[in-house]
């Protein structure tokens, strides 16, 4: 039976911000990519997308603006066209293009790229969709695989679209976010709105054994390497007043037993405010560990998002027309955005079903740079290959160089590759 009305859903607490601040210069789009061991065939990838999209309602949505709020509405248009990658990554996803879908699928050589407007889902939701798309593609490219595993979505995928922020928030609490300005990396920008990417490959097992030896997590090590590298590159400009603050998104699902595909994360920050002239890497590693470990507790994470959700719940605030809300949200965002030097997001270890593993070379992820944060980093790993993807709008690569040199000093072998803009 034909449905009479279109399904629609409210935006989650985090997603409310993205349509307000997103634009050509700050797309709020992230990329998840899978590299296969074979070149991608466009027709098959399109067929895979046509097959998967109708089964995933959480991605079959378009963004609409109401009088008081933005909202997501069911999109019954055909799946967006798959194209060969021919632009810089993470461009703004215009709501009136791409058949109004809030994600795009491109390919290049052996790589499938999924770019998602953050309003739709966070990295966990995006990764589930990319995995299903890859499975469907591989089943089409290798019919014997289809015979073995059958069609349909895998049992590890969730279609849940609950607003886990609303479900789990407890009571109003005070703001936990830093709003004091941090040190911001600035410099000459790449020509023609260039988008620089440097991928660094490191062995997971080697990195894990180093971290175990020093009693820190992989994430803390990467944040510390970034902090130390920034500190060395801009030593004279960093002070207790302008500390290096690295924002780290934390996936809340494991803490609150959620399987939602909507956004469900909060940001915590690692802060390094130097009080003397010289710091060694080991000292910065210890500071980073202390700073992050103390914040990633269920109580603290709950307090962070409860503050945001409780603000959204006030009827007075809800009844403010959208254009006025936009102005207020932009102002608050600008203040908070300048409070962080960068964002380092770690997707963790990507896993795929055993049957598909022989066809897959690796995964990587990154997000677009944003106001005040000209350099960001995404981390993902697959099997023994951890990929750090630095994206930047700056010509200078001193920070990236410092991170990789530090890794090399710590006995880790690093291979790098770029998207070529640094050679122009």
């Amino acid at each position, binding site marked *: 039976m034909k449905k009479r009305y279109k399904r629609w859903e409210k935006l989650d607490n985090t997603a409310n911000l993205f349509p307000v601040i997103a634009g050509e210069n700050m797309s709020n789009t992230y990329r998840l990519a899978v590299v296969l061991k074979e070149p991608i065939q466009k027709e098959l990838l399109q067929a895979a997308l046509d097959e998967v999209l109708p089964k995933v309602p959480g991605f079959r949505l378009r963004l609409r603006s109401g009088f008081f709020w933005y909202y997501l509405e069911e999109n019954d248009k055909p799946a967006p066209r798959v194209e*060969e990658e021919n632009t810089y990554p993470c461009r703004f996803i*215009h709501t*009136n293009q791409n058949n109004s879908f809030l994600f795009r699928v491109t390919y290049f050589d052996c790589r499938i790229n999924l770019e998602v407007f953050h309003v739709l889902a966070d990295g966990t939701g995006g990764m589930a969709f990319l995995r299903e798309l890859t499975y469907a593609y591989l089943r089409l490219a290798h019919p014997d695989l289809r015979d073995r595993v059958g069609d349909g979505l895998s049992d590890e995928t969730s279609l849940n679209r609950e607003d886990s922020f609303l479900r789990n928030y407890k009571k109003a609490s005070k703001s936990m976010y830093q709003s004091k300005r941090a040190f911001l990396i600035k410099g000459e920008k790449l020509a023609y709105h260039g988008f620089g990417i440097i991928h660094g490959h490191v062995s997971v097992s080697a990195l894990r054994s180093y971290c175990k030896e020093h009693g820190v997590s992989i994430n803390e090590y990467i944040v510390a390497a970034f902090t130390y590298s920034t500190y060395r590159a801009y030593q004279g400009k960093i002070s207790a007043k302008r500390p290096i603050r690295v924002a780290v998104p934390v996936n809340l699902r494991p803490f609150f037993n959620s399987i939602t595909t909507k956004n469900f994360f909060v940001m915590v920050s690692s802060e390094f405010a130097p009080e003397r002239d010289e710091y060694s890497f080991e000292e910065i590693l210890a500071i980073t560990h202390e700073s992050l470990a103390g914040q990633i507790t269920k109580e603290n994470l709950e307090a962070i998002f409860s503050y945001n959700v409780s603000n959204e719940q006030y009827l007075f605030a809800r009844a403010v027309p959208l254009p006025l809300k936009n102005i207020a949200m932009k102002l608050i965002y600008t203040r908070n955005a300048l409070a962080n030097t960068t964002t380092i997001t770690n997707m963790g270890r990507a896993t795929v079903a055993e049957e598909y593993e022989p066809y897959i070379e690796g995964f990587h992820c990154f997000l677009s740079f944003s106001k005040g944060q000209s350099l960001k980093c995404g981390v993902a790993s697959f099997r023994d290959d951890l990929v750090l993807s630095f994206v930047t709008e700056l010509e200078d690569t001193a920070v*990236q160089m410092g991170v990789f040199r530090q890794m090399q000093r710590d006995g880790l072998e690093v291979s*790098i*590759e770029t*998207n*070529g803009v640094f050679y122009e």
Partner: protein
Amino acid sequence: MSKTCSHCRVKVLDHTEYCPLCGGVLKKDTTIDKRRPMGYPDVYGFTKKRNLALRIILAICVVTGFLLLATNYMTGGEWWSLIPCISIAYGYVVFSLYFNPTNGYMKRIIWTFILTLGMMIALDVCTGFYRWSVNYCLPAALLLYNIAGIVLMIVNHRRWESYMIFLLTAILVGFIPLCLIHFHVVTEPVLCQSAFVSSVCIFLGTLIIGGGRARTELGRRFHV
């Protein structure tokens, strides 16, 4: 063949002779890399050409406008050059609006209305403000806007209800000519009043005939 930067001590997988991190020349060795670079398209060259084309068009417009103004200034008399200058500016902005592939059709339609109306009023003011722009062009634009809304609903009939907001904005914009009548800027009010009344009628008609779908659409748009 593998390439290593002897300063950074990292392997570089790109097809290049120098390190993208420090600029040092890479050292080749005989070991074979198991990993091959993922590769990215050459975006730089395309962007460069497109930006150059846009800058050339802008330069032609600016220079032409400047020459017209200069000629007018030197020959004296009425400021006739303002008319072609306004037209050139209008042409360039509309061209940019349509040239940019990221602009959707709704944005193009709405901005074409606003820009055209703006140009008409500017031309009217430059030629002595005989009020033809506000007396006739403004209500005509409103009527056309309503007709565009109906055409869009027919063409995109599967999602006709999404244009309810388009029609609602016509009513809100319709208050502008009513205010202009009140302040005696508009001297012939019949057309303006007709345009407003037609906006209200079209919206109410759509709301009543549209039934549940129209009401649900408004419910979505106005959810608090």
